[in-house]
């Protein structure tokens, strides 16, 4: 199993490079010009623009440009971002963490809520509670994340008179007076700012996960060994949590990577609406300003985060399922 893991990790590197090359090709073939805004600025002369063109080899053919990019990549240099006037690596690294913690907290909270709800729904199948949860799940899966985000923002805004909700921040990651807060104040401030985005992401992810965990639990509970266990006189709780759950969780862990990917995507659009300084909003503005190096770098990082997520889920699977360990 360990060899399989390492092999998969190694293979993912050329895969990432392949998709990065394809993207590079696409972006380069597209009409439009990175330096357009420089050209449009009346204060800048032609010579200045030419100097920039030469420095980054814009006048050479595509393969050569990609080659230079690869060489820089080996030195952990992702190039220069024109729209942000800084090194791509620096720009991305600042934001990588922000997107990551959003997705991470969302997936943790989603799991903490979805699995118990799924168990409850499975155990009391077709009860009113199950039906309400099913209805809400469908709702959560069907509404676009950006739609939910704006409605929540508006709800917070108009609830000026309600005690807790009115204190929730609407956007951004930290408040104006962040620097002057104490250690716990800072943590509280960041947490308060995370409530809105994590809520939106959780709502969208919760629905699907709850239904899947309910489905898995239902399947497990029908199996022969459960009938045997009941016949043996094991207490119901032990059956549910000790046996059925452990097996039902397996497919969920395999889904972890996929979930993480969905959350990363969802976070991207969300970041723009609520001004969360993450990789998603960075990439959108990079695409809009055709900042090639930044787009490539962001894509790579998105892929990197996902590979990490998959790796974690594989390890989790090894820990949880002894059958996998032996295989």
């Amino acid at each position, binding site marked *: 199993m360990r060899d399989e893991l390492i092999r998969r990790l190694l293979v993912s590197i050329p895969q990432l490079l392949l998709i990065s090359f394809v993207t590079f090709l*696409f972006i380069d073939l*597209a009409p439009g010009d990175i330096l357009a805004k420089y050209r449009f600025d009346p204060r800048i002369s032609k010579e200045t623009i030419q100097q920039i063109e030469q420095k980054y080899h814009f006048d050479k053919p595509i393969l050569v440009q990609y080659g230079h990019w690869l060489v820089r990549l080996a030195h952990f240099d992702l190039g220069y971002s024109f729209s942000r006037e800084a090194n791509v690596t620096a720009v991305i690294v600042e934001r990588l963490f922000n997107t990551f913690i959003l997705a991470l907290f969302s997936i943790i909270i989603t799991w903490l809520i979805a699995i118990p709800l799924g168990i409850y729904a499975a155990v009391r199948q077709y009860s009113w509670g199950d039906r309400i949860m099913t209805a809400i799940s*469908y709702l959560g*899966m*069907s509404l676009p994340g950006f739609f939910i985000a704006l409605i929540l923002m508006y709800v917070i805004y108009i609830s000026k008179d309600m005690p807790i909700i009115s204190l929730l921040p609407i956007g951004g990651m930290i408040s104006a007076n962040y620097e002057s807060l104490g250690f716990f104040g800072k943590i509280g401030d960041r947490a308060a700012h995370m409530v809105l985005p994590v809520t939106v992401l959780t709502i969208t992810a919760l629905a699907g996960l709850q239904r899947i965990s309910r489905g898995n639990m239902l399947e497990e509970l029908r199996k022969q060994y459960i009938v045997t266990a009941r016949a043996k006189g094991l207490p119901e709780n032990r059956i549910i949590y000790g046996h059925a759950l452990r097996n039902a969780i397996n497919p969920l862990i395999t889904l972890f990577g996929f979930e993480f990917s969905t959350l990363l995507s969802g976070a991207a659009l969300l970041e723009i609406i609520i001004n969360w300084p993450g990789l998603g909003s960075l990439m959108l503005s990079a695409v809009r300003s055709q900042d090639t190096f930044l787009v490539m770098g962001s894509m790579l990082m998105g892929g990197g985060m996902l590979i990490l997520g998959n790796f974690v889920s594989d390890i989790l699977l090894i820990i949880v399922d002894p059958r996998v360990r032996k295989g």
Partner: protein
Amino acid sequence: MIFFKDNRAVQKFFHHPLVMPGLITLCFLYTCSIFAEFVAPYNYDNGNREISYQPPSKIHFIHNGKFSLQPFVYSYSFKFNSNYERIYIEDKSRPYSLSLFTKGDKVKLWHIIPIQRHLFGINDSSQKCRLYLFGADPVGRDLFSRIIYGSRVSLSVGLIGVFITSILGFLIGGISGYYGGKTDWLLMRFSECFMLVPSFFLMLALRSAFPIDISSTEVYLLIIVILSLIGWAGFARVIRGMVLSIGKRDFVTAAKALGATDLRIIIIHILPQTVSYAIVSITLSIPGYILGESMLSFIGLGIQDPQASWGNLLGVAMNVADIQYHPWILMPGVFILLSVMAFNFIGDGLRDALDPNR
């Protein structure tokens, strides 16, 4: 098709409590979208700028104290008050009655058949008074009509996209699972490339490759291609897994012995076994396409004005001021919700019906 032979599956499907509402909703929505030019009282680009943002027309039955069987509306006008809020005033002097099969905008059904009668509307060719079921957009266009026209894009993207994805998935998954070995390894690693990058990122990157100044038709096709490219890998992998196990069965060995070509075996013998899974998977992935298109159009990279799609209709509305003063502009979101939910209902019904475990 195999599952049709199993009456129990069909019965189970229709008995599932959520399937009927889902089917009815979809039938309704798709009918509206096919006959959009007829169902919508106005052309998608026909607006009266003088009454931008008009709230939904109030439908009356009593005029000057007299009850009338035929519903009617009054014409609206607006002024700004000192806070520059819009005040809409109904002109109660003249009622405009609503009727069915009214004469309205001259449009071409499916761009071919010229029609002038619409399902319902106001019988007034001067269009001084307009019927705004869901209110008006900023340039005075009927939101209801635009939602109906928009349904064409949003609903068809799912169907066509999923069609392409399934062809790609069947082909690549089938070949990969059947041949195994190096071919399988290569194809699967190739498919993983597309799953390595979170979908939104990949979508943006691919979209940025093409100019934004291409015609609406071209954007539409491009969106379908992009969404299919993102979606095929997952489907292909599962098909491959299924083909892998099916390929070991006796009837396949028999077919080989009888001299059938590989392609024939894959397409005619193996793939049909995967159909029940495929149908469920396809139905459940259509919502993803609808949502994907609405995301792209919402951020301005998809269908653009004056063409309508549910995504770009919402994109115009994303403003706190809009929600506060003109909440009806959020209606397209309700339509996205309804269509996606309907597909989910049907998909679940299919899955429950075709599940071999029950």
